């Protein structure tokens, strides 16, 4: 004789005010015991209408809006937007400006990955220790940004055709110091986390996504590389001067939470390599085109342009339509944070409550970009 234990599904609202939803994100989750049987993500708590606001601002003023989309990767946002504007207006960027923005965006990529790794481990329940370590390293990079452009998070450093101001003299030794200090700190992180049995057993084999699934769902970036797809826009479709620098694309074949974490840690090392090469290759010269070539009130010809970069979270694209006036007629952002959440339900269903936020954190989203 067997007894059937009947359990009743519980529906719980997690968020928008939950400690680990990485912002104001809400999930309506149905549990069967501890197991997840249904997830419905609900967005929009941070929607500010950036795309609409961009339609009423000049091309340079929109830079300040892009800062506030993914606020842990603002240099990268600036870069994607500038590429789109340059393509739309046919601006030939100044080489030194391009090198500077490559350095800035690679530094920002390290900072963004540090945040991603720190918060992923925080979601695993560590008592803030790895988070503080990663934030400490990020702080040094933010100090560099302050030196470079006077702001730490919302940089607005880039301008059409380059950057607004050359790096100060003390920037280069300061940057070298940070770059020298970083690899041992990343090794420390490795010791603390990568070899850690608890992290390994918690993340291994959880929320596996296959490459076919992810490509079908337009997921890009470290998530895709964690499943063994060698797809990095810096390598496949080099923008700026990425074709002149050499770097590896770390790949992991598992496609689980651990692989996603591992790929991010390795990418930080590659970014350091890229910055070192940029430092060797950068030449003196103007940092942005002459005012006659690129006026401040840019009036691109009628047309449209789509430019995408490899953001720290995936493919970040800007689609701009110009009607010949001083402000974009339409500005669309292909936000990797939003699109990488497409498979959230597939990732979470069947997993346990404890792994839910870990899987969610391994996607590495930023609510400022999801809702825009």
């Amino acid at each position: 004789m067997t007894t059937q234990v009947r359990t009743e599904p519980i529906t719980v609202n997690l968020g928008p005010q939950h400690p680990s939803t990485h912002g104001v994100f809400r999930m309506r989750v149905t549990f069967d015991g501890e197991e997840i049987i249904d997830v419905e993500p609900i967005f929009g708590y941070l929607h500010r209408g950036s795309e609409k606001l961009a339609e009423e601002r000049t091309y340079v003023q929109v830079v300040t809006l892009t800062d506030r989309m993914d606020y842990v990767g603002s240099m990268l946002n600036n870069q994607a937007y500038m590429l789109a504007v340059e393509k739309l207006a046919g601006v030939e960027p100044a080489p030194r400006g391009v090198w500077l923005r490559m350095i800035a965006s690679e530094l920002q990529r390290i900072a963004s990955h540090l945040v991603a790794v720190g918060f992923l481990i925080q979601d695993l329940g560590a008592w803030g220790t790895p988070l503080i370590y990663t934030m400490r390293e990020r702080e040094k990079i933010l100090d560099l940004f302050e030196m470079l452009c006077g702001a730490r998070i919302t940089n607005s450093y880039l301008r059409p055709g380059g950057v607004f101001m050359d790096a100060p003299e003390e920037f280069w030794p300061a940057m070298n110091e940070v770059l020298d200090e970083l690899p041992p700190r990343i090794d420390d992180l490795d010791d603390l986390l990568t070899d850690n049995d608890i992290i390994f057993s918690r993340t291994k084999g959880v929320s596996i996504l296959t490459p076919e699934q992810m490509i079908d769902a337009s997921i890009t970036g470290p998530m895709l590389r964690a499943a063994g797809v060698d797809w990095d826009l810096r390598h496949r479709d080099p923008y700026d001067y990425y074709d002149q620098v050499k770097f590896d694309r770390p790949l992991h074949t598992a496609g689980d939470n651990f692989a996603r974490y591992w790929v991010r840690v390795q990418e930080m090392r590659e970014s350091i390599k890229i910055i070192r090469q940029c430092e060797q290759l950068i030449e003196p010269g103007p940092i942005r085109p002459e005012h006659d070539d690129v006026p401040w009130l840019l009036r691109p010809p009628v047309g449209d342009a789509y430019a995408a970069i490899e953001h720290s979270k995936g493919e970040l694209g800007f689609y701009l339509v110009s009607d010949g006036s001083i402000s974009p007629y339409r500005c669309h952002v292909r936000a990797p944070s939003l699109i990488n959440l497409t498979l959230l339900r597939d990732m979470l269903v069947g997993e346990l409550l404890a792994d839910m936020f870990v899987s969610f954190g391994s996607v590495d989203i930023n609510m400022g970009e999801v809702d825009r």
Partner: protein
Amino acid sequence: MIGLGLLKAMRVTLRNALKTPFTIQYPDRKVGIAGAAKNEGKSPVGLVATQPVTAAKAAMSLYSVPVNIPQNPRFRGNEFTWYENRCTGCASCAKYCPLGIIEIVTSPGGFDVQEGESYAIDVFDIDIGRCMFCGLCVEACPYDALHMGSRFERSKYERDALVIPVDELREALKQPSSWFRPQFEEREYDPFRDGERTDHYSVGRHEKPDQETLDERWVEER
């Protein structure tokens, strides 16, 4: 084997625990006896001998000294620095502000360095409460009249008090940031070291360097 990774993690945390903290304490810093003696201008032994109460306080970490946060000269601070003599009232800054928070009202009859007789500025209000410190107004100013400030301690209890009116701008401490003002960096200016720049002549205008100067400077840097 399971467990070795955990021990490794404990080794890393122990190593970090033995490092000096990286916290920057603000607005003041707690110091021990050595720091207190330095602040009082005495040797530690002298401090214990002459000011035992202070020494005891310092030993219990109750003695604090004000701290200067290391800040870069380009820092885009809260208090705008504005040189009225140089401003023509062209309102480029107001037009360039993405949020439209600068209000300018002018009337004929002022005097201006560049233009001779020109507009007098009656109202030049900046609503700091909505400002996002992008600095586009500074970039737009054709006469180097508006600069970002260097300081940031300007919290207020009411939103309305955040508006910087023109009188306050005239009298405010003039510590311009070197953001988008390369002439400062050529002179290695640091707003905190060099102090106030009340005179707009000492601020200078930015003349674009020629390519030879740029190349020379690059060689020196390397």
